[in-house]
């Protein structure tokens, strides 16, 4: 069944099993997005995911299908991540690092370094880079998601990429 068929069926029945199909189709991608956006804080990502699905269930009927369901859900998730981040602003981000990469064999993944570098970017840079370069959203979409101007999105991306390139080249020098 397509996403649309599943959601329409769910809206008619509010059936748990139908919801689980929607949930299982999108949750792993949303979870990784939340982890990347918040710098790897697992419990915050789980809270964001939980709130995302609650809001989605309330608003499915309002979704107009002008975008993909995944994009719509990502928008909700990004808001939730931002809200949780605001609440937890006092947290030292560095304390939250590591949890996402401590499992699943990431240590042996050849992209470990890049992932780690992205994780350690300043929050603003990281969010724009994740949405634009990894998730493939345009600057317009990214700026809408993050409620920033297109100019800010571009400048944050520029600095984020510069920072990533610097870190990667430092890593290569160390390897030599």
């Amino acid at each position, binding site marked *: 069944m397509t996403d649309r068929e599943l959601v329409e069926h769910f809206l008619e029945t509010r059936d748990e*099993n139908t919801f689980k199909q929607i949930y299982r189709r999108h949750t792993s991608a949303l979870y990784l997005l939340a982890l990347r956006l918040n710098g790897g804080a697992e419990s915050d990502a789980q809270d964001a995911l939980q709130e995302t699905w609650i809001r989605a269930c309330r608003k499915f009927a309002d979704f107009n299908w002008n975008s993909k369901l995944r994009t719509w859900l990502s928008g909700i998730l990004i808001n939730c991540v931002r809200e949780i981040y605001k609440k937890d602003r006092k947290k030292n981000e560095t304390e939250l690092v590591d949890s996402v990469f401590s499992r699943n064999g990431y240590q042996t993944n050849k992209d470990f370094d890049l992932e780690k570098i992205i994780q350690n970017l300043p929050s603003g840079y990281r969010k724009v880079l994740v949405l634009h370069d990894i998730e493939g959203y345009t600057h317009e979409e990214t700026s809408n998601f993050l409620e920033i101007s297109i100019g800010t999105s571009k400048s944050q991306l520029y600095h984020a990429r510069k920072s990533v390139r610097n870190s990667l080249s430092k890593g290569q020098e160390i390897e030599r």
Partner: protein
Amino acid sequence: MKEEFEDFLSEQEKSQFANLPREKSPPNFLEEAIMKNLKKENLIHTNEQQGTWSFFKLATAFATAFLILAFGIAIGFWLNTDTNTLAENKNPQYILLLRSDSSPQATKLSNDEITRRVKEYTSWANELSEKGTLISAEKLKSKTEILDKNAETSLSANDDAVVGFFVIKAENYEKAKSVAKDSPHLKYGGRVEVREIDKGQ
């Protein structure tokens, strides 16, 4: 005119980003916690609610203690509103395996007694949930077969069958044991096996 922040990824950089993982499975308990919250908010229809009435009918019809236990656990599980599992997952987890004699002759009870015990199991499950101790609970159906490489043995009236389980958080084994000691299951002659879940830590 060239834009101030104009910048393009090289093909190699694009490939590096494209090769990053696209998904990561969240822990299994998250789905359970989300389903519970959605049910609590009345945003999805619960299958367990529908099953509740079936359990009542069956309990009345067959008057078996096994059904009492199953019903009690199901209600406790359904009413469990614990969301603390999301943020407080540091304590070790233990599984309480509820064992009892599930043969019909051992479980004949009056309807009043069934109702009373259902309330007691439900109340215990709710208490654990409110304390943030309960992670999950499930009933098990009575059919049980133990297989080995040569044959299979049916144990339909086992006098030490696992009839359900609770997964709980506790600081240590002794604390888990004290939770188990409060279980109404012991009071009514059942046995509770306490095992720590090996998280490899």
